């Protein structure tokens, strides 16, 4: 198309936009083309030529402001193989809730794979996503830029890292060299906003020791209340109080909710039990105080040693007092206190309160907790199993458990037209591949369709063993 045609076309367009004939403003060559036709057709023929000119004569040009996202980082693990992606998608789709989805992602990672980016991606604010996904969490937060840094984290390149990748790198350093991680935090955490600073300082829970005390004490003057509270709890875990804070009054108030007593005929022992409360307002206040007060301060207010208080705590009270107490022990108790309470809760079948302690328990204790849940057979407790290693439980652990037997019975006793199935995601998550295959075979024998969607995670589990 020559310049005259371009100019003519533009004028014709303006003419037709406002309404009227474009015959006289059309390029001379085009007027000649339509001249042979009947007069009433001139306008239509010009329209046909002009429309075609727009279609083939122009090329869309890139706007000046095109913004490209950084390249999507390659993760450290391979993506789920293509042949298993439908199973992965099916397991995700059939997950009943966020925990179910997390189990699919967790099991997949335990088997050495990550999701395909079009099947699942963590969001920019997803702190629960497994560490392998940290580069994608950061990528989600980046509108543009050059992408992630691949060096080791240091004070010098701190700002080059995006938050999730930095947190994963710092967690690695903390595991291997706790002092180096603390030094990095001392140097750089203070300049981060509170919502970034808090999860970074939270990493000190790994290998927490008295060496961390000076830094934690310095956080007593932090501008964020949440950071201050976290530091106070960490100090309490190592048996220290935060200087300059006044939690004594609250500890005394909380102690007022607790009744010391004596037990034993020959060897008299002190016991601590929550007092009966009169109304919801008191329950709420007590819960609030359990969140604010450190275990060490409560023990002091009751005139007891921390571990003695935990050992003497009378389990089985009403109104969630055990759960509130477990939350306090989890937040600010020493490792010994956590172990003691976990041991007592395990013996007392205090599953809900025990689940609160899970973040502080080691892998073995977490597995014991999962075994307890399986052995009790309360189907609703399945949702309490979090942070337990995926794909560990062998066939007898699963198939002989009360929970499994109840699940199987529920399936086998369904009416012919009932297709409801209890949530099987806990079994799908915990089972070894062999156990997953055995469960699929057993539930199919019990009447569940072999392709029933509720088996999706179990089928993914079994399939991902084939590497």
């Amino acid at each position: 198309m020559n310049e005259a045609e371009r100019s003519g076309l533009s004028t014709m367009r303006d003419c037709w936009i406002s309404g009227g004939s474009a015959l006289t403003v059309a390029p001379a060559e085009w007027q000649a083309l339509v001249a042979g036709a009947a007069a009433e057709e001139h306008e239509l023929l010009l329209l046909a030529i002009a429309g075609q000119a727009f279609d083939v004569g122009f090329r869309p040009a890139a706007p000046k402001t095109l913004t490209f996202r950084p390249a999507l980082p390659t993760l450290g693990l391979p993506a789920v193989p293509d042949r298993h992606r439908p199973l992965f998608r099916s397991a995700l789709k059939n997950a009943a809730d966020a925990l179910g989805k997390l189990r699919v992602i967790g099991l997949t990672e335990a088997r050495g794979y990550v999701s395909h980016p079009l099947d699942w991606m963590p969001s920019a604010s997803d702190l629960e996503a497994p560490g392998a996904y940290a580069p994608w969490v950061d990528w989600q937060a980046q509108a543009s830029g050059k992408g992630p840094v691949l060096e080791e984290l240091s004070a010098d390149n701190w700002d080059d890292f995006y938050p999730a990748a930095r947190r994963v790198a710092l967690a690695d350093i903390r595991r291997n060299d706790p002092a180096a991680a603390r030094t990095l935090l001392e140097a750089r955490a203070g300049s981060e906003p509170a919502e970034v600073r808090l999860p970074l300082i939270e990493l000190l829970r790994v290998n927490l020791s008295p060496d961390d005390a000076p830094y934690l004490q310095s956080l007593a003057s932090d501008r964020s209340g949440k950071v201050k509270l976290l530091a106070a709890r960490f100090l309490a875990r190592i048996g220290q109080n935060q200087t300059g804070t006044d939690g004594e009054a609250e500890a005394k108030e909380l102690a007022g909710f607790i009744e010391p007593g004596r037990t034993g005929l020959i060897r008299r022992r002190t016991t601590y039990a929550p007092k009966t409360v009169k109304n919801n307002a008191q329950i709420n206040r007590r819960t609030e105080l359990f969140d604010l007060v450190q275990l060490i301060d409560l023990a002091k207010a009751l005139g007891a040693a921390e571990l003695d208080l935990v050992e003497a705590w009378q389990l089985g009270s009403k109104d969630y007092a055990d759960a509130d107490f477990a939350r306090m022990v989890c937040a600010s108790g020493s490792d010994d206190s956590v172990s003691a309470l976990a041991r007592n809760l395990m013996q007392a079948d205090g599953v809900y309160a025990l689940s609160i302690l899970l973040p502080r328990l080691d892998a073995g204790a977490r597995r014991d907790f999962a075994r307890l849940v399986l052995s009790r057979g309360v189907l609703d407790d399945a949702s309490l199993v979090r942070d337990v290693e995926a794909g560990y439980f062998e066939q007898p652990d699963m198939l002989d458990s009360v929970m499994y037997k109840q699940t199987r019975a529920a399936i086998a006793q369904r009416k012919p037209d009932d297709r409801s199935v209890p949530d099987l995601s806990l079994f799908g998550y915990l089972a070894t591949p062999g156990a997953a295959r055995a469960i699929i075979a057993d539930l199919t024998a019990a009447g569940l369709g072999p392709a029933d969607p509720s088996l999706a995670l179990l089928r993914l589990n079994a399939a991902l063993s084939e590497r």
Partner: protein
Amino acid sequence: MAFDLKTIEALAPDQASLSAASKLTKLSNWVRLESQEGLLWGECQGSGANPYRVVVDAGDQGYKCTCPSRKFPCKHALALMWIDATTPAAFKTASDIPEWVNDWLGRRRKSGGAAPPASAGPAKSIGEAQAEAETRQEDPAAIAKREAAQKKRLEDTRVSIASGLDDLDQWISDQLRLGLTSFVDAASERCRRIASRLVDAKAAGLAGRLDEFPATLLQLASEERPEAAMRELGKLVLLGKAWRAAPGDAELKRLVGSSETREQIIGDPDALRIKGVWEVLGERIETRKDGLVSHATWLMQMTSGTPRFAVLQDYYPASAGRRAQAFSPGERFEAELAFYLARAPVRALVVERGQAVSGLGWPEPADALADPLAAHLARQNAAPWSSETAVLLPAGRLARDDRGKAWWQATGDNGGIALPLAGDLPEPVFGMTLEAAAGLWNGARLDLLAAYAEHGRLDLA
């Protein structure tokens, strides 16, 4: 548990369904027949371009078919049960359950199975259905009468369409006279009015196109709309002129009036036929304003040096419910395709479908520096009334403009050609370098169907 004929008889909604199912029990109608522990599924080539996917659960007699029939179970589901009852060996035992079967299982109600077999209603007989299928013969006199009537109908239709096209020309002239600004503002109402007139004039193809045009306009920025209106109205003028010059032309008849039947295309010796390996790029299932659902499955030939595309196009009433996908994106199979006669043939039917194929790569896209829209230009030269062209684009990346709209741009061509996308795509795709991408270009927007990247094949449809 296998089906028995008594159960099928009881499940059938009426005798006609049984008779129709009887014909479909011929294994040649089925592209795929598979089973796994009481679950049966298959793909039946019906009268449409896309096969129907049928799944039956022998355990509770639940069933699902993607056909638009309002009979439950439809003839395809009945035929699948019937084959199971009489020729169970026809079902191949599958090691994996396809995703579409899994999807159906996932969507089934959690309680309440299939409706129990009807105990009342007219009597139905499998034996009668088989006998009907064997004995039905056509009466030669009736055929001659039907053909004569059809000839007259065709002539009446031609006259009627010609009159409708005159009205269309007048209507387009009016739009130019009144101004495209007012046309764009009132496009829905104005297009609906002329589309109704064209339906009356038996120009259903043109009517459908005009009915859909306002929706296409609305996808564009307001400043682009008058130009898009000029392009589309210009194409309609060209199509009308071409039809008047050759009303018997198969392509023009189809675009203006109505389409040929499957049998006509399969039986047409002039229809282009191509055997090869085809990949399903993606499907577009859209409900149109005229109450029809347009179901288009785009295929790309893997075994040709240059990219060749085909589209399996069906229309069915929206009242039949939204139909499920007929293929899985990325699926590859050997097939012979028969193309509808056209200057640049794209619409096709599957004549014969063979084995699934794996291991072939996409054809080479054009060089990054070549014009990525060359295929569109070639198509416009051959058939200037066509509105969209399937294109295989070279390596490129996606980006956003300052309004947040998505664009595709060839790698290393900053500031050069960039194609605006019709819709948005999953965010991760914006972080990938697309080694090649296949999509539909309509002169204003690129509708991406699939792409290849470091992460493998991406389903973007």
